[in-house]
């Protein structure tokens, strides 16, 4: 069996709130294979974002381990080994779209010129051609999100961590970007861990969906999605899709009859 790209073992995390230790995650075990798209779903407060913070090195676990490429990496050294896209686009208002897209490359030591040239090469592919010199304030929400995506992809890391990247968008933009993300990923094949609270989105995008319980979060269900690639929106009404959806809703305790 090949080594998974990401292996999270017996992970426990606590944080302080109002002077109390709260357990955010308890004994979490999960892995992500190379070229795999994994969605994490769970009720709010299940520690989904905390898990991404831990994998990216922003937050330290109290127990357990994170292995990337078969090597255990302590929290302090994890920063920079993944590419993390947080909920908000977090574009710098003082940088143009092109300069924003090149940010991760610059942080990773590329010269400004080189970073911007690399970003420029991918602009058209991300539907941003002609908008290189616009400031974020001049871009629509969907375009800003695509610039943030480009920045995340350009970091050239094997593992992308996406925290509800469509959370702030309206339904139409959201659906367009989902379609666009799935197509892009089917070309790129970088591994992805994406947090979402939308079951349909998870089934549509992922190879595998991992369900976390309410706090303290732990893995309560894993669902391999048997939809073929490339994915199309027509699959949203297929029986396979609906069956997966039902299982996941049930795992979340959201099916009719479960609600008290």
């Amino acid at each position, binding site marked *: 069996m090949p080594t998974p790209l990401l292996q999270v073992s017996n992970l426990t995390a606590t944080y302080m709130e109002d002077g109390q230790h709260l357990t955010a995650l308890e004994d979490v075990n999960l892995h992500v294979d190379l070229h795999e798209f994994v969605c994490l779903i769970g009720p709010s407060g299940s520690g989904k974002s905390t898990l991404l913070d831990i994998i990216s090195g*922003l937050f330290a676990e109290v127990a357990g381990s994170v292995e990337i490429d078969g090597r255990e990496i302590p929290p302090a050294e994890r*920063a*920079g080994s993944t590419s993390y896209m947080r909920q*908000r686009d*977090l574009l*710098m208002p*003082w940088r143009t779209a092109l300069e924003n897209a090149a*940010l991760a490359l610059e*942080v990773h030591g590329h010269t400004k010129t080189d970073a911007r040239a690399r970003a420029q090469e991918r602009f058209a592919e991300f539907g941003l051609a002609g908008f290189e010199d616009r400031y974020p304030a001049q871009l629509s929400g969907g375009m800003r999100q695509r610039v943030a995506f480009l920045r995340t992809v350009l970091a050239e890391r094997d593992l992308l961590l996406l925290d509800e990247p469509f959370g702030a968008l309206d339904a139409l933009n959201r659906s367009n970007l989902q379609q666009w993300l799935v197509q892009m990923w089917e070309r790129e094949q970088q591994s992805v861990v994406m947090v979402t609270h939308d079951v349909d989105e998870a089934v549509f995008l992922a190879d595998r969906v991992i369900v976390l319980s309410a706090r303290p979060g732990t893995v309560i269900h894993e669902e391999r999605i048997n939809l073929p690639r490339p994915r199309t929106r027509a699959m949203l009404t297929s029986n396979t899709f609906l069956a997966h959806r039902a299982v996941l809703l049930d795992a979340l305790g959201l099916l009719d009859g479960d609600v008290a």
Partner: protein
Amino acid sequence: MSDRLARIVGPIVVLLLLILGWEVAVRVTDTQTWMLPAPSDVLGSFRDDWRLLLEHTRVTLSEVLIGFGIALAAGLITGIAIDSNRVIERALYPLLIASQTIPMVVLAPLFLIWFGYGLLPKVLVTALVAYFPLAVNTVDGLKSTDRELMKLLRSMGASNWRIFRLAKVPSALPMIFGGARISVAFSVIGAVFGEFVGAKKGLGYLMDRSAAMFETPRVFACIVILAVMGVVLFALVGVIERITLPWRRYTSASIL
């Protein structure tokens, strides 16, 4: 464009009308020149005393620029120190805020006692008045940096220095420029006040001496120069801001 033109032309027309009204009022009421000179008398003073005015303007302007420069450097350094270290912040920041309530110009007589009649005491008063808006705005500007953005940079593996340069400085610059605009206007007041208290040169000194001799047109000429100096310096900071921060045009309405 016509909107912008109107914004420039409007105040100028009002100003010219006021000056005209003043000229007429002085002539109609036959007010003595030593009491209230007409604008034409003030112009006359510019014509007759321009060498004198220029000489003293140079002194005041250098006090303003040196004082402001010192304040800028000191404000940035303390601002950065307070932002970067919690111990320094706890010890210094409350004092900094509290000290803003003290009118710094009242220290001018002390500087006269300690440093005499030269340039130094005026520069010090100027620097003191100009310092606080710069220091406080630097702290507030650095603190306004989006924490999520800093986390993003940290997740990319950026060092503290990188985060400071890539996120904190650009986030703080609009507020630092805001502070600089206030400070530069304060600087002119500081320098003139320093000269009032005791000086041998400068527009404050020239005003004081001219007033004592009832050379009122010259007093007005000094006032006009000081007003222009304040406005020009204020506008200059605005121009530098617009060149340095081109993106601001799209995120906020600009002043001036």
